């Protein structure tokens, strides 16, 4: 085994522990947003797609790289935006009446 592969396996195993530890105490209300957030993070694979597309030298590799970049970019951008929209709903808010008034004052001003 090459030195690099061994190092990669080390990183792999350490990251498993970090991944488990870091979300160990998540409340169930956040399960969906957290799934959506991790979904966006694995969009990092678009990085691989960029390397393929940028170094492609045959039509087939160009095509594969291009499609991979499109899908990967959709995963990244869509993933983060959808997560943000979900989490927007969790922000602290005052009683409905006061926020309605606030909106009115803002509109008047």
């Amino acid at each position, binding site marked *: 085994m090459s030195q690099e592969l061994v190092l990669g396996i080390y990183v792999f195993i350490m990251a498993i522990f970090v991944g488990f530890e870091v979300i160990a105490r998540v409340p169930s209300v956040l399960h*969906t947003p957290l799934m959506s957030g*991790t979904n966006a*993070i694995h969009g*990092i694979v678009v990085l*691989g797609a960029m*390397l393929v*597309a940028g170094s492609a030298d045959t039509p087939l590799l160009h095509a594969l790289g291009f499609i991979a970049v*499109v899908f990967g970019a959709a995963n990244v951008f869509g993933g983060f935006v959808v997560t943000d929209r979900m989490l927007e*709903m969790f922000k602290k*808010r005052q009683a409905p009446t006061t926020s309605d008034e606030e909106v009115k004052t803002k509109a008047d001003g």
Partner: protein
Amino acid sequence: MADLRESVIAVSYIIAAVLFIFGLKQLSSPSTARAGNRLAAMGMALALGATLLDRQILSFWSIAVGTFIGAVMGIYFARTVQMTAMPQMVALFNGMGGATAALVSVAEFLRLSRSGTIGIGESTSIVLGTLIGAVSFTGSLIAFGKLQELLSGRPLQFPLQRLVNALTLAAIFGLGGWVVIGTGGATALWILFGASLFLGAMFVLPIGGGDMPVVISILNSLTGLAAALTGFVLHNQMLVVAGVLVGASGTLLTLLMSRAMNRSVANVLFGAFGASGKDSAAAATDVHRTVRQTTTEDTAIALAYARSVVIVPGYGLAVAEAQHTVRELATDLEKRGVSVKYAIHPVAGRMPGHMNVLLAEANVPYDQLLEMDQVNGEFPQTDVVLVVGANDVVNPAARDDPSSPIYGMPILDVDRARNIIVLKRSMGHGFAGIDNALFYHEKTRMLFGDARQSLTEVGQALKSA
């Protein structure tokens, strides 16, 4: 200068990895979750920006155009989708990530195989990355189709299904071994790709709509793993770290979610939920089949003269987009001095937290949302429970009937309240595809129709009550 370039890339990747870890940490607490998501997005921007410095990249055209198209598509769907359709959106984006991982694996194989032999570490990663990415792609598309109701939510089974799946998997491992030892070549890998796409679809089709949250979570962690494998092929530690982070946290999340539903992961994957439920439901059928219907006027009066009302929202509320209507009704009731609470089952709707998100959107105050453990003790003192489009999470069979497929799932004990009014589109089944004894209970009244329309009519009737 080349060294400086590489150092910049390496340092950026390390910072990005730290941002991902802190982002995930913050995502698991309500007050910091939104900031956490932004932190992770910053990490992503840094990692992708640094990658563009890589000397391997000769042409930026396809990257620029591809990223633009993907970003526009992703952002457009993410911004325009209804809050109720969020779960299937996650499935769709996850499928795209899976497809990316599989395509990158195949492309790298084609590139590396031109320049001589491929190391065993790389070829194994390529085979596994192609397999897992492709399974995640078609599996997610099927999950999307089921949640979007393009496909039936019920488990689809056909004869010899398990045999077909086992043979496909065996063929994939055979082809994979052939590719790894270096004689299979590109043709074998393409066939493996196709077989994996087929396997992904076959793997999700027999699983019922109610288990889709767990399935999407599994596919999510699989895509993370596939991304990590492409990292081994490309010798890119950033891909390994981020991919494994998602793979591991996704696996833990899957376990937490199935624990909330009291289902084992193996049961979800191979149980074909609902298909076996018909027998026990049929047995209970003959005992008491009387359904007592009610009208919107009677419902309004029952609510108006109650002291305490608990609203139990479910997927029907999401489908009818009735969250605002239900909040208006609750406000009117409170003006009359009725105490109104919402009982939130952890897996009501199609995703854990689904109901919290919808009700928060409708400005329902936090302190009115009660979790299952808080509210279950209150039901015996509750005058009226209003069940809005929930089914399996209030099915007493989960508590009382050991032969029921959902036996053991924690439920909201609404049958202990004084009166129960159930708003429902029809007598159709929930995701579990099983009958619900609550609907035949003598204290239960059924109000059929679209939840939003029914609630609007109840609200109007309330004004004259």
